């Protein structure tokens, strides 16, 4: 479903070049829960951003459901993000000025649907992530774990082809983190494709497949070792 062929990403800083990613080829199937691991600076976020269409590769190709993400205009890319991809980041995921429900509805609000028609769907999603009682709260009235749940609910509202999470629990204690991982794993069981970046081997273990990056190069893939859960 996601095809990455020889993708590379080079940052130019003055005269020197930083190869954040080199020649990465990877396929991700529908229903997979892929964990990306690797040391700091190895290119995990870079790879995730390429998959999510936040950034474009300097070389190589990326397809989602057969649609190329490379070499298309910013607006096209943005619309793919809006309709096909769900994002969860490490921190400041939410717009502080909106309520939880409004934050969840945001991607569809951007598409022009009035909030009145989205509200029930947003509330249902918040209930699914266990926040049925917090729909009218603003982000600063929520705990870190609750904020991440809101972010997950928001990522789900478009029924995305893939859910991308970059160290979603980097800011949370281990107990709260576990709740989040369990939530993600349950979503995956219902068929949601997920790609998650993490440092933590225990967290990575929630995935159905683990790949490892090192210095921008794919250095390990659990599916080849037939270790998938």
């Amino acid at each position, binding site marked *: 479903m996601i095809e990455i062929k020889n993708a590379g990403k080079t940052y130019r800083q003055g005269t020197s070049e930083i190869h954040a990613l080199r020649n990465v080829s990877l396929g991700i199937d529908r229903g997979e829960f892929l964990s990306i691991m690797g040391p700091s600076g190895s290119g995990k*976020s870079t790879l995730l*951003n390429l998959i*999510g269409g*936040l*950034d474009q590769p300097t070389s190589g190709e990326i397809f989602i459901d057969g649609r190329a993400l490379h070499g298309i205009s*910013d*607006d096209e890319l*943005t*619309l793919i*993000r*809006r*309709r096909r*991809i*769900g*994002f969860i*980041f490490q*921190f*400041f*995921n*939410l*717009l*502080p*000025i*909106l309520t939880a429900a*409004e934050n969840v509805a*945001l*991607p569809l*609000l*951007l*598409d*022009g649907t*009035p*909030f*009145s028609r989205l509200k029930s769907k947003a509330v249902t999603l918040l209930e699914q992530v266990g926040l049925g009682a917090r729909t009218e709260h603003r*982000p*600063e009235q929520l705990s870190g774990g609750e904020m991440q749940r809101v972010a997950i609910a*928001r*990522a789900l509202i478009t029924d995305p082809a893939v859910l991308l999470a970059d160290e979603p629990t980097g800011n949370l204690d281990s107990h709260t983190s576990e709740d989040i991982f369990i939530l993600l794993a349950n979503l995956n069981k219902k068929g949601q494709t997920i790609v998650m970046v993490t440092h933590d081997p225990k967290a990575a273990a929630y995935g159905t497949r683990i790949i490892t990056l090192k210095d921008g190069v794919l250095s390990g893939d659990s599916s080849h070792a037939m270790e998938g859960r």
Partner: protein
Amino acid sequence: MNLTNLLRQVSLRHIKYQKAQTLLALAGISLGVAAIVSIAIVNKSVLRSFEESFQNATGRAALQVTGAQSGFPEEILDKVRSVAGVEYAVPVVETDGLLAAGKERSIMILGVDVLTDGQIRSYSLAQENADIPDPLLFLARPDSILITRAMAEREGIVIDQKIRVETVLGTRTFRVRGILNPEGPAKVMGGNLAVMDIYAAQMAFGKEGRIDRVDISLMKGEELEAVRGRIRAAIPQGYTVETPAGRTRQIEGMLSKFQTGLNLISIFAIVVGMYLIYNAVSISIVQRRKEIGILRALGVTRGEIMRLFLAETLVISIVASLLGVAIGILFAGSIVGVLGKIVSIWYARTAVTGISVSWLHPVTGIACGIAASLAAAIFPVLAGSRISPISAIRSAPWSEEGFFTGKRLNRAALFFILLAASVYALYRFAGFSPLLRSSGFLFSSQIFFLLGLSLVTPAFLRGFLTLFHRLLAYRLGSTGMLAGLNLGKNINRNAVAVAAIFFGISVFVNSAGFVYSIKSSVTIWLDAVVRADIIVSDGHPSSSTNAQTIPMPVDIWRDIEKVPGVRSADPWRKLYMDYKGKRVLLSSVDMVRRGEYSHFMVVQGREQELRRLLPNKDNVVVSEPFAEQFGVKPGDFITIPTPSGPVRCGVVAVVVDYLYDSGTICMDINTFQRHWGDRLADHFSVRVKPGEDISRVKDAIQRQLGTDRKLYVLPVREFKEEIRKAMDQTFVFNYALSIITMTIAGFGIIITLLASVLERTREIGILRSIGMLRWQVSAVVLLESLLMGTAGGILGCVAGILTGRLTLEGARYSSAVEYFIPAGTIVWALFMAAGLAAVAGIYPAHRAAKTNVVEALTYE
């Protein structure tokens, strides 16, 4: 941590990263300083040019006797000559002329006594005829004229060439008999000067038997004041005996209103600069909240934080002020000529050739720039120093520091509005105490009112946004929702931009209403008073006051009446004279003939009596400003200085007259001619016979009389239009102030939005990551801008209407002026506020749309 370290390590970085903000603040103060410096220089240079031209034109003269604009009898000269202590007394005729060579050019014509003038002034001729000792001897013949080398070179005139000059008797030809070196009088008016024999000048400019000035030198050892006293005693009242320096002071007095207007602009400009500094510093503090928190946590004291920000402001203000001084001097050089022209048209002839800069100008400019910047920075800096060390750790995405709490603001606003109301009440009802009943006092009421309203902008903006939220926001989809919410989250900062727009629009609507009301009233007045069909005039009516006009012999009205189709024609003479040290307009018409079809708008006095009391009697009517200024009412007597001595005139009525805002005296033209011995006219009012075509009659007059003189024959509709246009010029300051304030308001919005966009980088990143398109990001920022503009526009219109009334009341033009709400302008102003805001939002919107998503997401 010490201040220099902080400045070097931290502040420089910020200047680098917050280029736009720093630049705007810098530009604001630079412009303010430039305005102060250039206007001070220009004001000084204009006065200096008068001083120089008086010095050059007066030569050795220690005293000058001057009288009415129309000149005075030559007998005065003999009286002065017989005063003890007077060495030489020479007569001068000084008039404006039009040189009809190539491009029309107005020049000053000096008529001098060929035999005696050399005792006071020295002339020298250019090379070709340098062997002739006394250049004035060239002028023996009545058609001879001397011109300056500057003029000769510019117009390409050579010796013995004939040139054509407009005179009272029509266009006459003179022969250039010599070219003067730029010395003494030849330097006056930038060389736009011609010298002729006094007798020829009297003939050519309708001043037979009259002179404009007597220049006097004193015997050795005589005491100036003593001689001056003796001269005063020897001649009738109504003459001025002044030293050349004293004449400069006179001019200074005359120009004071004008120069105050200019100074007002420079004060405005610096206030505007302060606003930009205030805005830039506030925003920089909001943006650096976290940094301040970290510094505080690391042990930097409040005092050090304050000093750090003040030091940053100081550095910026010094750079800006230096820049401002340089710009100011350059700018002064380029506008001084234009200013000189305006002064020439409205006050007195001069040609400003250069600027004179003293050390005081840059010093004042820099001092003002620095003081204004620090004063503007102090409040935001105080607020900044109160930021707690916890701000460094607390990750609350926004919070308003509680310095300007809503409650405090509203209380302060209420205080100022009440203050404004009580000042106004005092003005209105405190009787006629001159201190309280001054326009300055009323002005302070306006300032308090505006101050009060600007403090209320946060509350107003909040209400406005609530309304927007209820009525419109959701119809505009996510854009509307986000824009409304974004604005609401930092009310105080956004209110500063709204206040700027509010202020700009209120100044605009204020002056538009003021101007509109006066224009409407003037139109009503013109329609009542100017009832003729055609006006024949010596000069273009839009150069109405002291323009370079060559009056016509008064008897031309008979010739005009001979033109087929003309029903009647009657003369109108306008002169400026000094009355009790003030310049007033003396307007005389033929009361009998004019009275047949046109009437005064009487405010006090009985209209029926005018026809009996005015014609050829020593009675006058005066305009309202005159009556108010000199405290006269119908039944009083005023003593008017005339060339033949003071004349006691009865005041019959006070009338509406907008011709000259310092006051007008109107009398019958026969009375005028009797006392002034002047038989000239500036305009003729012409009525056409019923059924005649006005434009045909107009052409006929032009054909018959316009052959050997310059004549403006205008249908009355055009004439009125020209008068209105001329009045428009007096409103340039109003327009200038409006433009300045609006520009600043625009800058205010740009800074505010830019800061808000930068502050939201992370949020924009999130929005973009979940699929917000670039144009949607732009649209949100633009909509925010539009909302701020509209909010400011609405408040500004309300304030503008209210203060416009006060301005009109304070100007006290006339009791006949009513306040008209400038409805058209208000619609305009609202669109302009929104439009300006939208334009100001373009750059920040562009910046927002360009936000790099990945970088924004890594940014914390």
